[in-house]
């Protein structure tokens, strides 16, 4: 042991060591300084950041969807209602055992546990916002989930209002459908919007265009949870604001008649008030089931709807494009009268064919109509009469006029995704096919064949304008949209009266192509049309029933009543229906008859009005 005995030396060392206490103090102060700086940074400078995180930890915000507004017809009858539905919701942050929960839910919901797991994982991107994993489950499923909720933290049941389409298949395309909001729509709505993933949003029809009114405002309920995700107390609650009802111009009973008249044949019917532009009925066939989009669908069922060759999702009334056929003759007649190419006395001899150079154009009646004036030509729908007009007028005049009256562009109806149609011109053909215009093409254009394409609504709008004294009203389907006069056609009263006479003769005269729908009760004017689908092919076959369905012609008819002062104009088109007169005209007649019945007028009253 080298114990130092020297007292003095020992004392010295002792003092020295005791003095080193100050180094220790400095060291400790440095350590505490670090702590204070860190505390300052965390609690003062970043305090609000951590506060937010603590808030996220403890608060769960559940939004309570607002009741969606109803869609009503013009008489306040309900077309689409709201009803309660039970949904399964997940708050991803509170999920502890994804696999276990997915298995339990899949058992009750009769679905694939992997699918549920994927959904929960996907929802993790927004861990604190609840997301739907199943919608509109049955009452029994709801009850058995409810009874097991305590074993599934993070899962909850909520009640929303789902669409109830009281009359399945009625006005389906007008009403449109709801579907789960897409990522794109969500981004478009913006971060601050009321929308969150899994919400329903209008995807088409009135549901789409009136989304803002119908939706209302979601309410929110904020409650506190503990670390295990158990509810502790409700902190804040705001009630949802119900969406507003939307009233349409549609008449439910007339819509039903139009739908029944159309049946399940592919085609469309549009009924319009010529004087106001109100759409009374708009039916498209085939229909789809709008409820299938409410819950996320499998890729297969989605493909089966999208890939259906009958395109059930399309609203044919505004999207269907068809050659106008002989209905186009009404416009050619108006143009020829205005441009003084003809008057009521002008006669053309129809031998059953029209020759232009080496080409021969057939009249639909092979034996010919003989000598016809304008009224007769319209009544019997003589092709030769209009072939000659087509050659004389030329494509430029015809195409300018067609555009002038509103073809080749949107009709202005509130619905989205309307087709524009096609008005061919020399310029258009050069651009489209890099080919010059042939005179023969002008000839067939005048009979509504060839390149021209119109939608049923476009035809309804233009024809309404012609029978309404030249006043073209913008078609509208929402009762709230103000009436709008789009234009006055540049046609004199005499010219319009002549056309109307011709249209009346189509039904009234003994040779009229639609004489079969003549009604003792009310007067009808109108025009048949047959849009050729496969030119030439058909004429070789003697009997139309031998022609394969997809090559059969589209059948058109538009009719209005009463002729003098039209209250209603109806357009019907049947795809591959054959001749307009036999197939489409009765539909229009039925709708017009239904219109009078639904007005509650007696037979005599209607008859008097129609004298």
């Amino acid at each position: 042991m080298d114990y130092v005995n020297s007292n003095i030396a020992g004392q010295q060392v002792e003092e020295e060591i005791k003095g080193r206490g100050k180094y220790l103090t400095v060291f400790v102060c440095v350590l505490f300084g670090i702590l204070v700086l860190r505390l300052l940074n965390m609690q003062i400078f970043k305090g609000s950041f951590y506060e937010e995180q603590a808030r996220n930890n403890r608060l769960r915000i559940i939004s309570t969807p607002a009741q969606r507004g109803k869609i009503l017809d013009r008489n306040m009858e309900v077309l689409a209602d709201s009803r309660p539905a039970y949904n399964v919701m997940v708050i991803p942050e509170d999920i502890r055992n994804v696999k276990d929960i997915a298995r339990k839910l899949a058992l009750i919901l009769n679905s694939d546990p992997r699918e549920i797991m994927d959904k929960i994982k996907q929802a993790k991107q927004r861990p604190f916002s609840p997301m739907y994993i199943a919608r509109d489950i049955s009452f029994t499923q709801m009850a058995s989930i409810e009874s097991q909720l305590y074993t599934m933290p993070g899962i909850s049941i909520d009640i929303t209002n789902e669409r109830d389409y009281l009359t399945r298949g009625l006005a389906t395309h007008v009403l449109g459908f709801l579907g789960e909001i897409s990522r794109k729509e969500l981004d478009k709505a913006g971060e601050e919007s009321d929308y969150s993933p899994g919400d329903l949003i209008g995807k088409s029809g009135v549901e789409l265009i009136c989304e803002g009114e119908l939706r209302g405002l979601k309410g929110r309920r904020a409650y506190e949870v503990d670390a295990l995700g158990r509810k502790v107390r409700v902190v804040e609650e705001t009630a949802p604001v119900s969406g507003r009802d939307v009233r349409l111009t549609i008449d439910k009973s007339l819509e039903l008649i139009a739908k029944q008249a159309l049946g399940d044949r592919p085609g469309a019917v549009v009924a319009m008030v010529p004087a106001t532009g109100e759409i009374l009925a708009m039916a498209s066939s085939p229909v789809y089931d709008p409820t299938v989009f409410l819950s996320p669908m499998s890729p297969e069922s989605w493909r089966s709807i999208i890939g259906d060759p009958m395109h059930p999702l399309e609203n044919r009334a505004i999207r269907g494009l068809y050659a106008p056929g002989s209905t186009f003759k009404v416009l050619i007649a108006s143009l020829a009268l205005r441009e003084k190419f003809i008057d009521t006395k002008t006669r053309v001899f129809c031998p059953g064919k029209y020759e232009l150079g080496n080409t021969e154009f057939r009249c639909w009646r092979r034996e010919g109509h003989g000598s016809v004036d304008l009224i007769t030509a319209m009544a019997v729908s003589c092709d030769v009469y209009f072939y000659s007009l087509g050659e004389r007028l030329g494509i430029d005049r015809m195409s300018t006029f067609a555009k002038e009256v509103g073809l080749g562009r949107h009709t202005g109806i509130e619905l989205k995704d309307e087709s524009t149609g096609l008005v061919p011109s020399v310029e258009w053909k050069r651009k489209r096919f890099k080919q010059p215009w042939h005179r023969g093409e002008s000839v067939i254009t005048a009979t509504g064949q060839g390149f021209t394409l119109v939608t049923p609504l476009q035809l309804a709008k233009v024809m309404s304008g012609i029978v309404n004294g030249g006043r073209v009203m913008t078609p509208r389907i929402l009762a709230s949209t103000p009436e709008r006069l789009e234009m006055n056609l540049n046609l004199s009263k005499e010219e319009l009266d002549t056309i109307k006479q011709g249209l009346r003769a189509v039904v009234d005269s003994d040779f009229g192509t639609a004489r079969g729908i003549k009604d003792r009760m009310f007067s009808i004017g109108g025009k048949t049309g047959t849009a050729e689908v496969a030119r030439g092919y058909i004429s070789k076959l003697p009997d139309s029933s031998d022609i394969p369905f997809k090559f059969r012609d589209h059948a058109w008819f538009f009719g209005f009543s009463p002729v003098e002062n039209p209250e209603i104009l109806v357009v019907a088109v049947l795809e591959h229906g054959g001749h307009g007169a036999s197939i489409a005209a009765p539909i229009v007649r039925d709708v017009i008859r239904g219109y009078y019945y639904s007005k509650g007028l007696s037979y005599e009253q209607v008859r008097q009005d129609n004298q």
Partner: protein
Amino acid sequence: MSRYDKITNNLDWGLLAIVAALIAVGLLCIYSAVRLTAINIFFKQLTWILVASIVMITAFLVDYRTHMRLAWPMYVCMVLLLAAVLVVGREISGARRWISLGFMSIQPSEFAKIIMIIWMAYWSEKKIQIESYGMKDLVVPALFICLPVGLILLEPDLGTAGIVGMIATIMILLIGVKRSTVITLGSLFVSALPFIWFTLREYQRNRILTFLDPSRDPLGTGYHAMQSKIAVGSGGLWGKGYLQGSQTQLSFLPEHHTDFIFSVVAEEWGFAGTTFLLLLYIILITKIIQVGSRAKDRFGSMICYGIAGYFSLHIFINISMTMGIFPVVGVPLPFISYGGSFMFMNLLCIGLVLNVAWRRFMF
């Protein structure tokens, strides 16, 4: 003057008052942390405090110079206990740290801290030399330090081993080591760090990795650190109010009555509360250092310095850990955290300091 008067007159009442204040803060926080889930913990802590007070009084009454004679026996006992815990200790999540005595469990590594302080103080008293220590002089003490540290590492208990090692290092530096030796050993230690990494167990490495990047495993190892940071930060300037901390009351904070008790202080009392607590601590530690520098002998002052280092390291590591600037190692907060053995230790240390302070007037 009666013996009683001598005790009361020369007793460091200020030091005792601070300790009492700290214990009071600790009780309030434990109450807040466990009142909704396990209130019995609060009453258990009360019992521990009473028992530990008796330990403190005993430590105060027995002349600390007695310990000089007991330094070696204590050292041997410690080594035996540390070795025993490796064999008969209860295994809890892969580590053997506790020996069950039937009525209670003890944590030998906890006692190793104070025994090492006493042994180091004893050794410095015996090895007085005028010159500072060189490399050769440090070989023997280094071996005696490494033995218990190594045994604790085997349990494994990285936190405690580190603290024991650091306390010993601080004490040796205070005794006096040549500058060149400090530099050589320092650089040796730094270059050895990568090798230490490979001797760590999987979960220890994970803790360190998660500390460096908490988002690595937000629901596992990183969960404690993250929730604790949220609790501390969200306290703000004035805190959310006593019993109002959402992180604490809704159990988002795990182990909030033991290692993470500081987060409860921080969340409910804010920056005001945490700085007040740190102020109490710094007063306590400077007072202990002051006692050390005024001690009658070298043994006494070294004990005080060791104890000051012991408290400082615990406070620093524990608070850093709750604020996410240190990996999560099981180091509790003196006087505040729940735990019997730890409270014994803390009050035992205070008893020793009071002992040293009081006996400087007695020759």
